[in-house]
């Protein structure tokens, strides 16, 4: 179980502290498939990065199956089974797709295992396995390889940060199938940050994060109409006018 309590993160801005996360509370049961959504700048990516250890929260707690993650290194969290797919993945000169997936899996992968991983993100293994993960790949290609690195770990907690960003419609359809399979297998807890209705509608629960807080939570049938009906993006001033 993932238990997040009163999670805070603030940064100094113009001599005063600005809260990015302002007391996030969240309980996620094992093997749930949750989608986090909300307006831009609301704190979703910061929340995900706090779980992975890429951002150090200024207060609160993140407990994963009885282990406190706050204060633990990124490497130790990864070894504990936490994985995070970057919204904007880095590129590596000289490191091939095969190399990266081998590191991600933590073991030598058979040819069919590597092919399977790439197929799950809509890439043809024959064309990509020995290519370097460098600037010769498009943004969408790098993004799909990034998702494959998360899948390769078979981790019990996988976090995907806007997996749809930069991906063409055909590949996106293949990705939604993969996420559907992950949900149906029920052997990992999945957190996906997304704005895509097709992904949102697959969720066990949708978590709305805005202004650094959880502002709503519920079934897709309950939350989706609220999102599509909200044209002022939680802005109270706009609501009044």
């Amino acid at each position, binding site marked *: 179980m993932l238990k997040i309590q009163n999670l805070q993160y603030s940064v100094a801005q113009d001599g005063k502290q600005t809260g990015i996360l302002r007391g996030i509370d969240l309980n996620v049961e094992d093997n749930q498939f949750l989608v986090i959504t909300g307006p831009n700048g609301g704190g979703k990516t910061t929340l995900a990065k706090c779980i992975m250890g890429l951002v150090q929260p200024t207060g609160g707690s993140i407990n994963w199956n009885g282990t406190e993650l706050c204060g633990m290194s*990124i*490497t130790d969290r*990864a070894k504990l089974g936490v994985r995070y797919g970057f919204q904007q993945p880095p590129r*590596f000169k*000289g490191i091939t797709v095969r190399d990266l997936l081998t590191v*991600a899996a*933590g073991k030598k992968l058979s040819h069919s295992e590597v092919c399977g991983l790439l197929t799950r993100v809509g890439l043809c293994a024959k064309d990509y396995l020995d290519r370097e993960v460098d600037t010769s790949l498009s943004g969408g290609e790098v993004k799909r390889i990034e998702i494959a690195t998360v899948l390769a770990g078979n981790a019990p907690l996988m976090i995907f940060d806007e997996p749809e960003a930069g991906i063409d419609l055909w590949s996106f359809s293949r990705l939604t199938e993969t996420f559907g399979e992950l949900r149906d297998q029920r052997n990992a807890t999945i957190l996906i940050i997304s704005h895509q209705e097709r992904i949102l509608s697959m969720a066990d629960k949708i978590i709305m994060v805005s202004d650094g807080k959880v502002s709503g939570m519920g079934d897709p049938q309950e939350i989706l109409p609220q999102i599509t009906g909200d044209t002022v993006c939680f802005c109270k001033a706009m609501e009044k006018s």
Partner: protein
Amino acid sequence: MNEIEKNLLAEVADLHEIPEGAYNIRMDGKSAGRNSTAEIQIIPKTDKDGIEIHIAPNTKKQSVHIPVILAESGIEETVYNDFYVGENADVVIIAGCGIHNCGNQDSSHSGVHTFHLGRNAHVKYVEKHYGEGDGSGARVMNPQTNVYLDEGASMEMDMSQIRGIDSTNRNTQIHVGDKAEVVLTERLLTHGKQNAESRVDIFLDGEDSSARILSRSVGQDDSVQTFFPCMTGNAKSFGHVQCDSIIMGNARISSIPAIRANSVDAQLVHEAAIGKIAGDQLLKLMTLGLTEEEAEEHILNGFLK
């Protein structure tokens, strides 16, 4: 051969025993073994140190190993090796040099290699430089490589120096004939107080000639690296220079690529970049379970692969 010599041989030429085919092993200033074949003749020079390697026309799928090992401290030598590769031959030449210096005198090897490739010949040339030993004497290598490519000839040059050489001054000159092609990959890692300078001059003399220089280097600690890759287009030709360096610690790296066109039909491009390892690269690999040190090593190994 003792353990030190065996290890050096494995490092520079991937050899664990005497190779098959043509070879010349030079150890501590003397020949330690030589073999010619029907197609590849190795003849010692009589006027100075070195050998001539004559590869018959149409020789295919054969290799020549010419490793040099310096295991005694204080040896300083200049060796002249001339290669004559016949028309339509297709061979691999492996020429590594390893120095083990555990004494207080400098050990130095200067290999002057000259290649003459006949029409449509193809050579893959692999040169590895490696140094080890905890003596205070310096390990020095100053290779000089001259290449002449006849019409339609092509050469892949893979030259690397990963750790262990205190001082190197590399000098490479290549003349590319009609429809000939050369691809030169240079990989270098310096550390400690090492110094490396590499000058590559490629002259695209022939019509439809082409060349690529791909230089990748890592400068660590207090080491200093300087690169001068220069591509000159004297005819209708294509040339591309790409230099990438990763800088770490207090290292200093200068990358000074140049392109010169002496023909209106010469098309020349250069790119050069120096930067440290990007933070998000380290973080990404750490999210996959590597420690920061392991992530750094993985990035460097990939970069220099």
